[in-house]
């Protein structure tokens, strides 16, 4: 358990709590139960997609395709339900498979085609939205299935359904990353791919699998998006990939690979959503929302990067000895390539 709830969680957790306290101080509506269940609805889609983004990032890749893939998958789901008449019970698993397959294609192009994932998924970001537009003349498809909505809006024992998906998938992902061979291989591949090859890890397979996972989780997000909006549209999911990456990064994942914690990503996603919720509750205009979100991403990474300096300053302020500071800061190679 220590592994799962390790020290990497403290920062993101603290950030989340601080943000929540600030929001709670500005409006008494924040802590009402209705709003808290709202939060779990709002965080759900981006948080589920961020599982995949985080895993790809840990393996030193990046996935820019999630937002467009959501659009494409909501359109395919809509086709399944409205045009092909496939029952919901089959259509949903089928979409998850399609998501996994799209991830497989991206992963194979990246890993076996040796194309940087930034490029592969940038191309996919553009092309998937184009593909989504080929369905139904590019028009949204509405009113998919009355049974779809409860997937998002339904409640069990008064708790919204998305809460359970979050618990399930985050538990599964945290377990996989910390206690299974695959999880550790993903960390190894991200930390040093050359070393991973030499230790007998099938690096390309592992890289590919991270994209399959990301595609699958994106599909989960797409199903929830369809359920939430009871429709499919080629416009859905815009900038979702950036939000998911932001969640991972606010949660402390390093774009250089090898570092990241699944549960910290959940905290990251929560932090972002709490801020948005707080701004919404205070009716902040979209200009302020954007500025604050940008600032939070920068601050979160900054605090992580400057941990050594900050604790040394704090230490000096509160008269602690310099010694304690050193142990707190994981030394970096002095001349690392970090621009």
């Amino acid at each position: 358990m220590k592994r799962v709830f390790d020290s990497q969680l403290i920062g993101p957790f603290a950030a989340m709590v601080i943000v929540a306290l600030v929001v709670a101080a500005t409006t008494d509506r924040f802590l009402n139960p209705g709003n808290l269940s709202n939060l779990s609805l709002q965080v759900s889609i981006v948080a589920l997609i961020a599982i995949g983004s985080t895993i790809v990032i840990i393996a030193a890749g990046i996935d820019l395709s999630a937002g467009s893939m959501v659009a494409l998958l909501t359109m395919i789901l809509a086709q399944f339900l409205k045009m092909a008449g496939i029952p919901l019970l089959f259509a949903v698993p089928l979409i998850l498979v399609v998501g996994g397959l799209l991830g497989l294609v991206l992963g194979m192009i990246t890993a076996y085609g040796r194309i940087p994932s930034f490029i592969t998924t940038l191309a996919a970001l553009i092309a998937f939205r184009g593909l989504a537009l080929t369905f139904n003349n590019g028009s949204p498809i509405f009113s998919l299935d009355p049974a779809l909505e409860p997937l998002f809006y339904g409640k069990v024992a008064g708790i919204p359904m998305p809460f359970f998906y979050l618990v399930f998938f985050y538990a599964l992902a945290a377990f996989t990353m910390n206690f299974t061979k695959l999880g550790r291989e993903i960390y190894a591949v991200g930390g040093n791919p050359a070393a991973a090859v030499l230790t007998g890890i099938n690096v390309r397979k592992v890289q590919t699998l991270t994209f399959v996972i990301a595609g699958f989780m994106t599909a989960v997000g797409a199903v929830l998006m369809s359920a939430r909006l009871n429709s499919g549209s080629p416009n859905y999911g815009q900038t979702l990939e950036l939000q998911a990456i932001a969640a991972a990064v606010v949660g402390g994942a390093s774009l250089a690979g090898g570092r990241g914690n699944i549960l910290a990503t959940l905290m990251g996603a929560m932090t972002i959503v709490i801020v948005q919720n707080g701004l919404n509750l205070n009716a902040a205009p979209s200009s302020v929302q954007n500025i604050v979100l940008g600032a939070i991403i920068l601050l979160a990474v900054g605090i992580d990067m400057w941990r050594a300096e900050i604790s040394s300053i704090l230490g000096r302020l509160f008269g602690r000895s310099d010694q304690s500071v050193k142990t707190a800061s994981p030394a970096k190679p002095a001349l690392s390539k970090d621009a």
Partner: protein
Amino acid sequence: MSQGTPPLWEFVDICKAYPGVLANDKVCIKLLDGSIHGLLGENGCGKSTLIKTLSGVQQPDSGQILYKGKAVQISDPQDARDKGIATVFQEFSIVPTLSVGENIFLGNMPKTRFGVIDWKKVNESAAAVLAEMDVDIHPEAMTGTLSVGEQQLVEIAKAVAMKARMIILDEPTAALGEDEIERLHQLLRKMRSQGTAILYVSHRLDEVERIVDEVTILRSGRVVRASGETEINVSQIVNAMVGEDISEHYPKEHNATSEVVLRASHLSTKNGVHDASFDLHKGEVLGLGGVLGSGRTEIARALFGVDALTGGTVTLNGAPLKVRHEIDAIEAGLALVPENRKFDGLFFNFRASGNITAASLGGLSKLGILDLKAEDEGTLRLIEELEISPQAEQKTVNFLSGGNQQKIVIARWLFSDAKVLIFDEPTQGIDIGAKIAVYKLINLLTRAGKSIILISSDHDELLAMSDRIAVVQHGSISRTVPASDLTHDDLVRASAAQLTHAATEERQ
């Protein structure tokens, strides 16, 4: 070695080509139980290629691999493991973002009954392996935070942990000091006595002499001396490797004068230099000796402005030298050939010219515009003078051999006309021929009145090439003596004297 039983592993006529080179050409080699087999040869002769084939990293183009006389295929690294082969690769193959324990068991992590990774066992077993190696590293430490030497020890621990029948070490000692090397040799002798077959690669021929039982020598991908065809002594080996007689391995010239060029007084930095003082004379080679982690690199970094001084002064030709950034040091005529040319030295996106002029762009330009003609001329001159491969200006430098790469890094400081050159492990990982070329370069420089600070973990080299030696302990200079007054044993003893301290300090 009993004649009747077949060798544990045998290569028969193994060939392996890379685009443009035949890296292994009908190589035959026999690896026996309970024997340490040295595999030697110049840079690029195909040693690592052979090892990668045996470790399943790549497949041979032709030829046979026999296991106890039976032809087998080693399809991938995991297969090699399963067949009892453990390898310490030349390139670092640890994952810096994972713990020491996990690195040691990466690829076959202990699992519980439920197929879940058993972290308790990972750490306990790792601790046991490290204790067996007499190494004091905590299994839960993040590997990336360890020193280079410690990381190398973790690499070796990975192989040891596998309890393999066959263990391959490709230049395991390049990043180790004398003491660590000695401990490693102890361990290898113990394994040999337990019947393990060991394949050992090193460019440090003195240590080869100390430990191997038999040698195979490669040249240009071919076996030029099979096991048993050469006596195991340095000059015989060198003859076979280079293909010609080399009379003098350390062609030392004495050019030192009494004029003090650089004086460091009471230097301290946050990175472990404490009150270090020494003088450097014109035309002199001042060697810095000490164990791994004693702070020799850190002294170099302090002089060169990489680490800020927290105390002490430097004077150059009698005038105080204030170095706040590397550029100040360079402009004052200092030069640093870093210990890791791959990570800190070379620009792999440049050809020789870009690399050679990188530290002189200011002087090479007027109003910010480069004089490309001067660049080309200077490059060609240095390529000729230093006998760098003529390929060097045709392609980016990643195509060059280690020796040529090292010469290019040194050429950079000849181009900038540096007066004081700091060489940090300048011969690490390069073959004997290239080493001698570097030594000759050192002579050329001192003859021209330049001064050199030489950091080397190869004691023979340090003793032979230095005029004086400063012994570094805990980031300060414990004493400075003429090289001729020191012996190999003195240095080992001087180093050993501080071991107990070093060990306690590391633990903190």
